[in-house]
């Protein structure tokens, strides 16, 4: 187990190189002095001097990249052009908000998605299955930025049930969390359905039925337990991408998280902010995937055995 985790952690290294290289290319692609591109012209001369020491033009491409990595490893992601604030500090400050939104969205999506998938699979080809199918494909087809605007128009501006934007308690959280949960709910219900249909064909289900087990017990002990891996995968992927900021949802609902921060960076061409958010977001995404993979080991003994054989 420890060996596996270590191996997975080692695999992270090329990934982090990749993303930092991408960010570095962006830095070099910007016109003008890369030092000023990283901290903006408003930074203190002292800060500028420090950065220049690491990524000054005299160091050549590779030297500059190594210097850039050094800066990153010190947590120096650059400074916003507009606020002259440390980018990483802002990200760390906004991350809990993003996390709250992501948790809330998953709290809606996971139970509803799984239940819908269950119903769909057990009532295969019946009306309710078709309905759930069409609804979930619709959920996957409506762009989030549009559903967010329409839902806000209806619930906040017309009915005035919820505040249209802002960061705060559950009243502020409800609408963005719901909007964000739609695609995850749709994917979950579809994956749950296909997985369960596959499981229902398995001989051990017949055995369980032949033994005369009550069907509720079969559904929970035999079906759900075996369906858990694909479901956890989808939850992990969606949660991971929500954590690097639901760019669109946070922006429209004025939720003060990393997604909105990214969007502001893009609109103002505030490159240190964009780069910081991308590096941080990728790291979080990769980390969540790692946790998901480790969870597999606990959830499914077959994977553990397979790893041992290797």
């Amino acid at each position: 187990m420890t060996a596996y985790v270590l191996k997975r952690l080692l695999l992270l290294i090329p990934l982090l190189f990749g993303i930092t290289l991408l960010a570095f290319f962006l830095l070099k692609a910007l016109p003008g002095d890369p030092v000023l591109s990283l901290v903006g012209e408003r930074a203190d001369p002292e800060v500028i001097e420090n950065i220049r020491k690491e990524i000054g033009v005299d160091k050549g491409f590779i030297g500059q990249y190594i210097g850039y990595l050094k800066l990153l490893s010190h947590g120096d992601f650059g400074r916003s052009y507009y606020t002259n604030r440390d980018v990483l500090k802002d990200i760390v400050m906004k991350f809990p908000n993003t996390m709250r939104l992501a948790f809330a969205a998953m709290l809606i999506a996971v139970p509803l998605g799984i239940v819908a998938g269950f119903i769909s699979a057990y009532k295969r080809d019946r009306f309710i299955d078709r309905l759930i199918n069409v609804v979930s494909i619709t959920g996957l087809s409506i762009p989030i930025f549009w559903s967010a605007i329409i839902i806000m128009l209806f619930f906040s501006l017309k009915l005035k049930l919820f505040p249209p934007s802002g960061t705060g308690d559950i009243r502020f959280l409800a609408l963005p969390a719901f909007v964000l949960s739609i695609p995850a709910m749709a994917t979950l219900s579809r994956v749950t359905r296909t997985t369960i249909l596959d499981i229902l064909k398995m001989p051990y289900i017949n055995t369980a039925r032949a033994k005369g087990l009550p069907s509720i017990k079969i559904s929970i002990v035999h079906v759900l337990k075996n369906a858990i891996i694909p479901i956890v995968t989808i939850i992990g992927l969606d949660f991971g991408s929500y954590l690097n900021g639901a760019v669109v949802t946070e922006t429209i609902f004025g939720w003060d998280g990393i997604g909105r921060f990214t969007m502001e960076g893009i609109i103002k061409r505030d490159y240190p902010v964009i780069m910081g958010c991308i590096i941080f977001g990728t790291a979080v995404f990769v980390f969540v995937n790692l946790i998901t993979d480790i969870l597999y080991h606990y959830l499914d003994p077959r994977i553990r055995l397979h790893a041992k054989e290797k």
Partner: protein
Amino acid sequence: MPKKSKISLKLLLPFLVIALLFAVSVLSPLLPIYDPNKIDLDSIKRPPGMDHPFGTDSKGRDIFARVVYGGKVSIGVALVAAFVSAFIGFGIGIASGYFGGRLDTVLMSVVDFVLSFPSLLLAIAISVILPPGIYTVMIAISAVGWTSFARLIRGHVLTIKDMPFVDAARAIGCSNLRILVLHIAPLCLPLSLVMMGIKLGGFILTEATLSFLGLGAQPPTPTWGSMISANRAYILTAPWMVLFPGLAISITAFCFNMLGESLKERYEFKDN
């Protein structure tokens, strides 16, 4: 891939709707509609009516014309991105599956590498590095999209490369290149087409999202995503400006997703 002769309505219907949407978009210059970029300050923010079926925007431009022209950009970008993704993925998948060994390990690590990025964030990163425009969007979508093609084709090549006809070809002295191009590639081609159908719905949404973020085609070129972001401020006073482009995206993506769904069922693809 199992052969089936009957084409179901579920497959045909979304295909026809998409074909219609695409035909209207492509033929738009010939249709009797307004110029999508013509500013008419005498008729700003008109609600939908006889003159302007979808209303007008804050500069008096006809929304219907802009939705039709925007469709050309949005569907076109998604189609090109799908072709490029299929092309790259096809080449890499075939090489990886056929030659195996170290090449396979390297190529598949690249696939894993790309897949371990959050896809929208990667697309945003690429769009920020390159100058904004439709070509950048195509590149950004393809850069993420080719991976699923590569995996699929590789898997298929693995199942056919040891079949007797390949051995026979090798026995009569065909070169690797000849076997790949004439014997293996044709068998993988339909599979790529099916995958394109499955992927297009997602590509449409990615294009729309990048345009909404201002990273796509630049004004005055209309795209569905940019129309929504530009008119977001008028949502309370003139909701039609946002409603119709959004419906256009949703309907198009829905048809593509339905098409993909039917293709998946027909060719027994698994969600993964």
